[in-house]
């Protein structure tokens, strides 16, 4: 495998997957489990081994962001997060003032826990609020109420967190436009720093999909969901929040740096079962099963140094890794566009040229012309961006680049 140092920059994002939940939400198809809490201590040991392994072998990269996702990372008992973070600091090069985010469930949080989280160095919280309507929260199978969410947010502020994101969902069964507007307005009122607004996707095999298929709950109206998205745009237009990605808004300077790594198609290592990685132009993922993950990481020797290897060997010999795919240049271009067009900054001719040594207007001449023709994309002084309509039909645009 050849690595062109000019096109890969040397920063890295770390994702750490915590596959534990007290209860599993009916719409969720993530790699997460309830009832396997007894695995937690072994799991933390395993993840520390994985950190050791990648820290050694990726020591040419420096870490800019760390993200604890799940599952429910806030569900981990105290002490474990600290141990994981210490291990990261021990084995990776960390840039100054990294962004460290943890996803939280509003009712796992109390003042003590928040103080503890602060102390570990975590500086960004992402609350999975999903809705501020209690009926909808019940449909979503969430353990918290809207009041729990508001309280948790207030306590987080008290504890000194000044970068807090709230996740909300629209396009829910039985959700009305008014309910959605109310939720958004209430959210703006409490003044979070960042908002992620996602349309519910009914994933095959989830209990919610089954309930809808068997007509126990009504199927969400996708036209209404489009209205909700448009409404959210309008509501947020005259606020302090800037839309910087199709589904994300933030106060100036408080974008999610971690997610920007994905959208800018840069390098990240995803640790924990089911974690996805993209380093050295290679995509791969860990096996999903937490038990298998723990078992296979027993092979990592804590006293060994794993740094004197070629990147391809590093990936191939990691016992938890599967689905290794080398991303050749043409595919990397397509992926860069698919991800980059999600951002309001778009894709500039210059950055594309810098990364690939080719003109985006030459490589994708027809695709660009078609998308612009349909009013889905504009060329703003050499930078390609989706229009408002393009945001609603982003798929139609992305498809043209594959």
């Amino acid at each position, binding site marked *: 495998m050849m690595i062109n140092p000019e096109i890969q920059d040397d920063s890295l994002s770390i*994702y750490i*997957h915590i596959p534990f939940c007290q209860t599993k939400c009916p719409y969720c198809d*993530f790699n997460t489990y309830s009832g396997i809490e007894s695995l937690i201590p072994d799991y933390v040991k395993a993840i520390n081994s994985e950190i050791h392994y990648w820290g050694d072998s990726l020591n040419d990269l420096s870490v800019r962001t760390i993200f604890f*996702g799940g599952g429910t990372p806030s569900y981990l008992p105290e002490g474990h997060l600290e141990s994981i973070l210490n291990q990261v600091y021990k084995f990776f090069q960390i840039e100054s003032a990294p962004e460290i985010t943890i996803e939280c469930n509003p009712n796992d949080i109390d003042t003590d826990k928040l103080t503890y989280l602060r102390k570990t160095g975590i500086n960004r919280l992402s609350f999975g609020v999903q809705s501020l309507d209690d009926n909808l929260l019940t449909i979503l199978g969430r353990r918290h109420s809207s009041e729990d969410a508001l309280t948790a947010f207030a306590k987080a502020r008290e504890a000194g967190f000044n970068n807090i994101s709230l996740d909300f969902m629209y396009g829910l069964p039985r959700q009305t436009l008014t309910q959605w507007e109310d939720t958004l307005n209430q959210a703006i009122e409490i003044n979070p720093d960042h908002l*992620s607004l*996602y*349309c519910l*996707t009914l*994933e095959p095999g989830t209990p919610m999909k089954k309930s809808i298929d068997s007509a126990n709950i009504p199927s969400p109206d*996708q*036209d209404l*969901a*489009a*209205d909700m*998205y448009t409404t959210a745009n309008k509501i947020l237009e005259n606020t302090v929040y800037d839309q910087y990605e*199709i*589904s994300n808004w933030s106060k100036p300077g408080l974008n999610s740096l971690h997610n920007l*790594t*994905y959208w800018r*198609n840069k390098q*990240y290592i*995803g640790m924990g079962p*089911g*974690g*996805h*990685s*993209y380093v050295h132009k290679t*995509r791969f*993922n860990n096996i999903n099963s937490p038990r298998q993950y723990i078992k296979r990481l027993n092979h990592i020797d804590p006293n060994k140094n794993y740094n004197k290897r070629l990147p391809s060997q590093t990936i191939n010999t990691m016992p938890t890794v599967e*689905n290794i*795919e080398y991303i050749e240049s043409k595919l990397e271009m*397509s*992926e860069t566009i*698919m*991800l980059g067009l999600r951002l309001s900054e778009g894709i500039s001719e210059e950055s594309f040229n810098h990364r690939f040594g080719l003109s985006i207007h030459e490589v994708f001449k027809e695709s660009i012309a078609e998308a612009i023709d*349909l009013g889905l994309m504009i060329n703003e002084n050499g930078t390609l961006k989706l229009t408002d*309509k393009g*945001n*609603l*039909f*982003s*798929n*139609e645009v*992305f*498809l043209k680049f*594959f």
Partner: protein
Amino acid sequence: MKTDHIRNFSIIAHIDHGKSTLADRLLEITGTVSSRDMTEQIMDQMELERERGITIKGKAVKMSYNKQGSRFQLNLIDTPGHVDFGYEVSRALAACEGAILVVDATQGIQAQTLANVYLAMEHDMTIIPVVNKIDLQVAQPARVSLELQQAFGFTDEEIIFVSAKDGSGIEDLLAAIIERIPPPKTEYNELRALVFDSNYDPYKGVVAYVRLFDGHIEKGSQMLMMATGSKADILEVGNFLPRPTQTSVLAAGEVGYIATGLKNVRECRVGDTLTLTNNPSTKPLPGYQPLKPMVFAGLYPSDGDEYLVLRTALEKLQLNDAALVYEPETSAALGFGFRCGFLGLLHMEIVQERLEREYGLNLLITAPSVRYSVTKTDGEEIEVDSPAKLPPTHLITEMKEPILSLNIVVPAKFIGAVMDIVTAKRGEFVRMEYLQNNTLDESVPDSSESRVLLEYRAPLSEILMDFYDQLKSRTHGYASMDYSIFGYKAAPLVKLDILVNNQPVDALSLIVHKEKSLQQGKTLVERLKNLIPRQMFEVPVQAAIGNRVISRETIRALRKNVLAKCYGGDITRKRKLLEKQAEGKKRMKRVGNVEIPQEAFLAILQLDR
């Protein structure tokens, strides 16, 4: 071998009455195929034939059987079982002296049984009636035997009872074949061989399946096709045992194959007589009626780039399927493709499946049409097999459509149901005949259980679509049907056009009866509304006759098309979803700026449901 030790025969049967199983059992009992090598229904070699459980192309196999110290050569020429392939039955029969008529002991005489028996009688053949599946609990051999006696005048003693499945009665049948079927007769010394089928082999060229009536032939002889005048040096002669096996000579009375080395099946037409260049016969055998395709449809590659692949595939397929005809056609909606003629809908489906399966093509097939006869105002009479080729209304004096003679066999209690369906399909009643005289049959307590033959005349275009499915469903599967072309008849027909987003889609046009046009236009438009996915803009769908819009629906604009959030950096999953969507788009056809899925082009097939 002397011709008096040769017996040539076919097996004729209604579909599913056990023809192929019986053939298998004959092969096994005569030791032609050891039971160890016996794969079920060995005569059906094509993968597609196996899957569908039907015989598409006839085959021939040579068996040896010892009877009272003498060795007999038994040549079985297999016949296809589906009505679409009726012509193949006729071809096979012309090569034989006798036919085994197989009737299912649980079902009795069916429409194809009648058709096949009449065909065999036309050929003046010896018919051996066989009641099959007597091992089944629900079998009614006595009743079916009675039916055979009454319908065709067989005697009780003539009828043989077998179970092809467990082998009982097969020895009796073999004895009957030898005793009753006359040996081949020869008249001349010059070679006369009837080509009853052919296929194309990349190494041996066209391989003719032949029945020798006179003379003999061996490898190296120079052959002459009497109708086409083609000449060739024979590369190989042989028999089917059942695999093609080379032999030194084929003699009068025998059935076998001749590898001609010819590159084109048209040079060695089925039905032609093969003779020798240096000692030619002057009297060709009676041939066959040339095949006339009855159903026409446009075949288009989903991906326009595959046009040449499709052309090559059709060329190759035609080498083995003389019934398939095609010519290039261009559609504004679908691009470059071919207008193909088929024997019937099943034939069409099979061709489509073979093209997709054997050549990896992704095909779009337009609504099937029949061939109309159109008299223009200038007196010229033209044939029109595609709505696109229909002249403008003001230039047409008269249109005629092909009419079928339709035979349906059904339990009497379903007469009403059949009448309903046929009337809705513009059919006319001709006659009705009870297959069984109940007064003679005390074993049948309820007269409604007796079965009737109903004969109708009906337009082919109406029968084509979903008549058979309706017939089967309304009669709980009891009805069977057979048809043949009766003639042409004038009818008030109009061209129904479909406009999607105000653009006519030529591939969706139909020729329909005037009285049905309104209803069909409405149904089609409604159906298309549900089949065409919502686009980024509103799309009107209209049905029109000439300039007059008779029906309209609107497909509302799609509001969004986005992918779910990408979680935890799983970009691959997202990309795969996109790739899948892109693949789906590939299977659609763009008409103007509207993407129309394949299913929309098939909507017309189910117009009457």
